[in-house]
Structures are given as structure tokens and as C-alpha cells.
């Protein structure tokens, strides 16, 4: 076997591939060959490392040095300095927030230090396309134990004792789900995986499928053995080509080596697994709709009961588990329920993966123990808001089915039971961070636009109700809001929640309800004062320069697309209101905070001269 003195684990998740991994890999390979180091240093492409904000990223073992934002131009210097001369190359290291010094070691960087890796145990540690590397990290040992040494009842007991709750959003106890299906009698049962992740801003499942496809397959084998399923389907959306490719390769190598198919690991157990590509309908994440979609029908939910554990795919008993749930089955079998419960809280044990996006510094994928304060995730791991002068405003948790959690509640522990009290949900784990420049009415409108579009149309309250709500929100953001709209929105929300069949309709009003609850004053300002404080709704704001703060630097003038700003150098400038498009560019450009957002002007002043009066 070849010996290497160093392994370079270069992230090849979708994020880093987009920021340049393929070119960096080629450059790195060429440079290592040029320097005669190709036989000593091995490049390994891994799944998503998680720190997508800094991509492409690379980890160097054995030193465990973390490099970020790699570019082709820097590669020769990096190879010469670090791999030839042994001097870790500071320029490409992570810099701490004050940009004062570089942090060389991965585990000293707060983003990584505060995480616990269970679901993501193999992220950035193995080559996702190598079965051997997966096995080297205890892969398929749990499957071997479950197949050869455990009865379904024993597996169910471990799962129930662990308290693992489904990570797809609903948080249903996995052990219980398996028990129901295990007790159903039928000639055929199905073990299914839900990889139809569709929330805007969520990419947890994609990353797991890309970084560690075997962990999902192993979880499915154990589940299949438990419920007695000989067939399985992984439902993935076609928009995840890399995940599909890695899963496909993993399945075929498992078939070749007898980890899938007949008589797995000499246990006498048979399990066949295939992939089904979904066309990307949000509603297909709902279990009954997903099963219909696999059957070749239009993806629409049906009433439960009968529950899928009794009548699921092709009317046979079926279990559908989310990707993240399945990825943590193997370690629970290996280490036991107590180990699993060593993290998290009584009702929400274990860890959860979150996708951090929006106005946050460290965009990426993180895994944290349940019960960690929301504040720790956003400030310590996430690095806080990405623009220096802006304040944190709210975080949308749980995607379009979730809700906004405002600044005041940021100390809340992240558990299923605590988050639900705020009106949001943990959901599948999307966290969209918003800073003070966000208009909450527009945010609610954005999420409702999504759900109204994705409503399958079966239930009138969801199909028509979300559309009516959306029209009302559009009116409010365009200055046609009326007294009483807020109450009507709340009433409609209650009706839609109460009368929709599936989770899509039952949760669609959540973003509206939570934004009204915590940011009701913004709705009122929109309706009564025609004032969007954030200056996002262009019909509901006007921009003004505060003379005392304006330095007369001219930056806003150059940035204004409609030449609406006039003024002499070093003297306060002025915005000609009838030319202003409310595009907000001056507000974003001004370094001195001299642009003020006020309510929309009643009527636009006629001649430019009169505008003189409109000052502070």
C-alpha cells in the first residue's frame, strides 16, 4: 500500500464546487507533481465541510490545518510554503473577527469548535465515493450487528430508548414509527428515505447525501431489517444532481460487495434499494404525497389514517424517514441509547443539523447539541450578522412552514418543545438570519408566495386561502392596505390551519402569524402611515439626506441610477424627490448613515425648487 505523509481533504460539496474546487484541485495536483510531492501527499475530495461561506476550503492532515478561500493563483505559494518547506501558509487561514490574527487549526475556529458531529461524523473526513473509507470509520459495523445479532424488537427498544425524533420536521419518535410498521402483517413492506428537501435556504439533507451517502444506506438497511422490508426507495429531488450521483455510486458498490441485495453480510437478509427522482414539488416532502409520487401519480396528500405504517407505498406497510434521521441510526446501534441521550434534552435528545443562511457571516452547515441557545448558534458559531454596522433582527426557523423569532427571544434553547412556543418550528433545520434592513411584511409575503405556489390544490382553504392572504400582503406592501387587514389575516390563518389536510396548509400561515405577533407595528406602519421602516417596499418610503450627517462625499450621487441626488463637494447633498425611484442604493452606499427613511410622500412635489423645504 502506498504511504502518504499528508492528506489534503478538499471540500467538493456543491457550495465549494461552485466557488472553484475543480480548478483548485487541478492546480494543486499539477503543483504537487511539479514539486515532486505527488507520491507523498494525497488529495481527497470530500463532501460538504460545512463552512460554505469560506469556500473552497481544505483541511490538511496530520496537522489539521484549515485553509479557506483557495484560489488557483495561491496554490503554488501554498504548496511551496506548507508542503515543501513545512510552513503553514497564513494568508489562506481563517482570520478571527477583528482580522487581527490567523487561526491555523480547524478545531480552534469557533465555527467548528462549538459543533458536535454525529450526523456529520464523516464530513470532510472521508472520500464519499470510497466504501473502504466509510468502513474504516466503523461503517456497516452497525448494520452487521443489527442483521446478525439483534431481533427487530431489540432494535426498536434501542431506538425508543434513544428518544430519536424524526428530523424531517414533525419530530415523530423514530422507534415508535418502526414499531408500528414492524407489527403490520403483509407480504411486502417498504423502507423509504425522504430526500425531498425543499425549504428555501435549507441544505442539510443534500450535504449528508453528498458527504456520506453510505450512512443513509446503512440506516435504511437497519430500518428495513427492523420492519421486515425487502425493498427500499430513496426519494431525492432531481435538482440535487451531485447527491443523486453519489447515492447511485454508493448503491452500486454496495450491490457489488453484498451490502445490498441477497444475503447481506451472510445474515440471510435481503434488501434492494433504488433511487426515485422527484421533480421538485414541495408537497412531495409530505409522506403520503411522496408515496403517491413514487407510484407515478400526481403528488397529493391523502387523509390519514390509514397511516403509512399500515398502508403506505402501493398500499403496503411502509416507513418513511428523513435523510438526517437515517444518518444517525448506525451510531445509535453501535453506541447505545444512553450515548445518544448524553447530548440534548429529555424531550429532544441528540444533535441537530442546521443550515445557516441569510445575513450571517458564517454561512454554512452546522451540527449542534439540542438545547443549545439560539444565540450561541447565531453569534458564536455563525459569527453574527455579516455587515458590521447592522443589527440582528430576526431569524426564520423551519423554512416556509416555520416562523420568525425576534431578537428578544434569542436566548431560547433550541429544542422541539421550546421553539414551538414561539410560533416557529425546528422543522428540518433551515435558519435564515435577517438583519435590521429586512422588512418583515415582505418576508412573510416571500414565504407565503412560496407556499401558495407549492400548494397542491387539493384543499380549498390552502389553495384559495393562501392566495387571498398573499393578495392582501401584496396590497399592504404596495400601499393599498386597509384598517382591519391584520385581523382578517389572522382569521384566515386560523381557518387555513384548522381545515387543511396536510402539513403544507397547516403550517403555511406560520410566517404571517409570527411576523404579526412580533412585528405587528411594522404591519401597522405599512397600513396606516404608508411607511416601510426598512425601505424595502418602494411605494411606502421616501429617502432623505440628514444635513448634519452628510459629509458631501458624493458617493450616493455616483451610485444613484436616476441622477436624483444633487449637491456640491463637502456640502450636504439633497435628493430630488420626483426623480427618486426609492431604489435604496444611496442608503446602502452611504458610510455615514446620513440617509433617512421616512414615510412615502403624500404627493410628489412638482418643481425641483420646492424640494428645498423637504429637509430635516
Amino acid at each position, binding site marked *: *500500500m*502506498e*504511504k*502518504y*505523509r*499528508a*492528506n489534503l*481533504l478538499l471540500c467538493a460539496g456543491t457550495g465549494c464546487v461552485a466557488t472553484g474546487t475543480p480548478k483548485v484541485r487541478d492546480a494543486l495536483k499539477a503543483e504537487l507533481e511539479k514539486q*515532486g510531492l505527488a507520491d*507523498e501527499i494525497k488529495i481527497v475530495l470530500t463532501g460538504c465541510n460545512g463552512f460554505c461561506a469560506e469556500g473552497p476550503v481544505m483541511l490538511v*492532515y*496530520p*496537522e*489539521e*490545518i484549515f485553509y479557506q478561500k483557495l484560489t488557483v493563483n495561491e496554490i503554488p505559494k501554498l504548496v511551496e510554503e506548507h*508542503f*515543501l*518547506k*513545512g*510552513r*503553514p501558509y497564513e494568508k489562506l487561514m481563517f482570520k478571527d473577527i477583528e482580522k487581527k490574527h490567523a487561526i*491555523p*487549526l480547524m478545531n480552534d475556529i469557533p465555527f467548528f469548535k462549538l459543533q458536535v458531529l454525529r450526523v456529520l461524523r464523516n464530513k470532510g*473526513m472521508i472520500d464519499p465515493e470510497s466504501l*473502504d*473509507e466509510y*468502513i*474504516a*470509520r*466503523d*461503517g*456497516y*459495523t452497525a448494520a*452487521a450487528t443489527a442483521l*446478525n445479532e439483534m431481533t427487530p424488537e431489540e432494535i426498536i427498544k434501542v431506538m425508543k430508548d434513544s428518544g430519536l425524533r424524526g428530523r424531517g420536521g414533525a419530530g415523530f419518535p423514530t422507534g415508535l414509527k418502526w414499531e408500528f410498521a414492524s407489527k403490520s402483517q403483509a407480504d411486502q413492506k417498504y423502507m423509504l428515505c425522504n430526500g425531498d428537501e425543499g425549504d428555501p435556504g435549507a441544505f442539510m439533507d443534500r450535504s449528508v447525501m453528498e458527504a456520506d451517502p453510505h450512512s443513509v444506506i446503512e440506516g435504511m438497511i437497519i430500518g428495513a431489517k427492523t420492519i421486515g422490508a425487502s425493498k427500499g426507495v430513496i426519494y431525492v429531488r432531481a435538482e440535487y444532481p451531485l447527491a443523486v450521483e453519489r447515492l447511485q455510486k454508493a448503491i452500486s*458498490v454496495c450491490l*457489488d*460487495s*453484498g*451490502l445490498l441485495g441477497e*444475503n447481506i*453480510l*451472510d445474515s440471510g437478509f435481503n434488501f434492494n434499494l433504488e433511487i426515485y427522482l422527484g421533480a421538485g414539488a414541495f408537497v412531495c416532502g409530505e409522506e403520503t404525497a411522496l408515496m403517491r409520487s413514487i407510484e407515478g401519480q400526481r403528488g397529493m396528500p391523502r387523509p390519514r389514517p390509514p397511516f403509512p405504517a399500515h398502508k403506505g407505498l402501493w398500499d403496503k406497510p411502509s416507513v418513511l424517514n428523513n435523510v438526517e434521521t437515517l444518518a444517525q441510526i448506525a451510531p445509535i446501534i453501535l453506541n447505545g441509547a444512553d450515548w445518544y441521550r448524553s447530548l440534548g434534552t429529555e424531550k429532544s435528545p441528540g444533535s441537530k443539523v442546521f443550515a445557516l443562511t441569510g445575513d450571517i457571516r458564517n454561512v454554512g452547515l452546522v451540527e449542534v447539541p439540542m438545547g443549545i441557545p439560539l444565540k450561541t448558534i447565531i453569534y458564536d458559531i455563525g459569527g453574527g450578522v455579516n455587515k458590521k454596522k447592522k443589527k440582528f433582527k430576526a431569524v426564520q426557523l423551519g423554512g416556509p412552514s416555520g416562523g420568525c423569532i425576534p431578537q428578544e427571544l434569542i436566548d431560547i434553547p433550541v429544542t422541539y418543545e421550546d421553539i414551538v412556543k414561539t410560533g416557529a418550528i425546528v422543522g428540518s433545520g433551515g435558519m435564515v438570519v435577517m438583519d435590521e434592513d429586512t422588512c418583515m411584511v415582505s418576508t412573510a409575503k416571500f414565504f407565503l408566495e412560496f407556499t401558495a405556489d407549492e400548494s397542491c390544490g387539493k384543499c380549498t382553504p390552502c389553495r384559495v386561502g393562501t392566495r387571498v392572504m398573499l393578495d392582501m400582503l401584496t396590497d399592504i406592501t404596495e400601499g393599498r392596505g386597509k384598517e382591519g387587514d391584520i385581523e382578517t389575516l389572522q382569521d384566515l390563518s386560523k381557518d387555513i390551519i384548522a381545515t387543511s389536510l396536510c402539513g403544507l396548509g397547516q403550517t403555511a400561515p406560520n410566517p404571517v402569524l409570527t411576523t404579526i405577533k412580533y412585528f405587528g407595528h411594522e404591519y401597522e406602519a405599512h397600513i396606516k402611515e404608508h411607511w416601510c421602516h426598512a425601505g424595502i417596499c418602494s411605494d411606502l418610503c421616501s429617502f432623505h439626506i440628514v444635513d448634519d450627517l452628510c459629509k458631501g462625499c458624493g458617493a450616493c450621487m455616483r451610485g444613484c441610477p436616476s441622477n436624483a441626488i444633487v449637491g456640491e463637494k463637502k456640502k450636504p447633498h439633497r435628493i430630488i424627490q420626483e426623480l427618486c425611484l426609492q431604489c435604496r442604493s444611496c442608503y446602502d452606499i452611504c458610510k455615514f448613515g446620513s440617509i433617512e427613511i421616512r414615510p412615502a410622500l403624500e404627493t410628489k412635489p412638482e418643481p425641483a425648487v420646492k424640494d428645498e423645504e423637504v429637509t430635516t
Partner: protein
Amino acid sequence: MAKLTIADLKKIKEKQHATFTLREGGYRAKVTVHMGTCGIAAGARNIMTTLMDEISRANVEDVITTTSGCAGFCAREPMATVEIVNKAPVKYGNLTSDKISEIFREHVMGGNPVEKYALVVGSETTY
């Protein structure tokens, strides 16, 4: 590809052991070859190659090698530092292929520092 058995899983895991010692830590010994400009000029590359051949031939999995910059004692390059876990590091100087082979056998594998080539016991902090 032959069907895997449980025994095969263990074999694969053992085969991968060296790779994961490198990534997960848990090595017994680390040899650092000093590769500053001076070291390279004096033949440090050759020392590294020999060392890697030795490790490969001995088929040991718990020894890792790494490079570092100039140790500051350019006159005595090529140099290398041998660190056995929980023992004081030992620096060797004026190395040749034969010397590093001997050091590998005696010190890294045998646990006895080769005093005749040793410069000093102790090491500057490296990453």
C-alpha cells in the same frame, strides 16, 4: 467484487488504519524533516524520501512524517526531529540517507535515541 463478510469489514478497517491515524490523530511517533531553503539545499528532500521508504518497508501505521521550516541551525542541515509520544523530542543534524535509516530503526522503531547523531533534546513549537 466478492461479497463482503463481517470479517472483511474488519480487514478493510485495518487496512485503512494508517490513513485514518493521519486524519484522526493517535499516532505513536512523528518525524519532522526541516525543509527550509537551507534544508532543501543540503538535501532534506532526499532525507524525506528515504524516511518514507523506510516507513513503507517497515509497514508501520502509527508513524507519521511532516515537514517544517528552517530550524535555525542552518549549518547542520539537513535536520530532522523525532518525537515519540510522551517523550522529549530529539533533533538530529548533518543527516544522510544512511543516518536517517539508522535513526528510523533505532529511535523510531526501537525507542532508543541515536546519540551519536543527536544535536539536542527539545524542539521549538510547531503547528
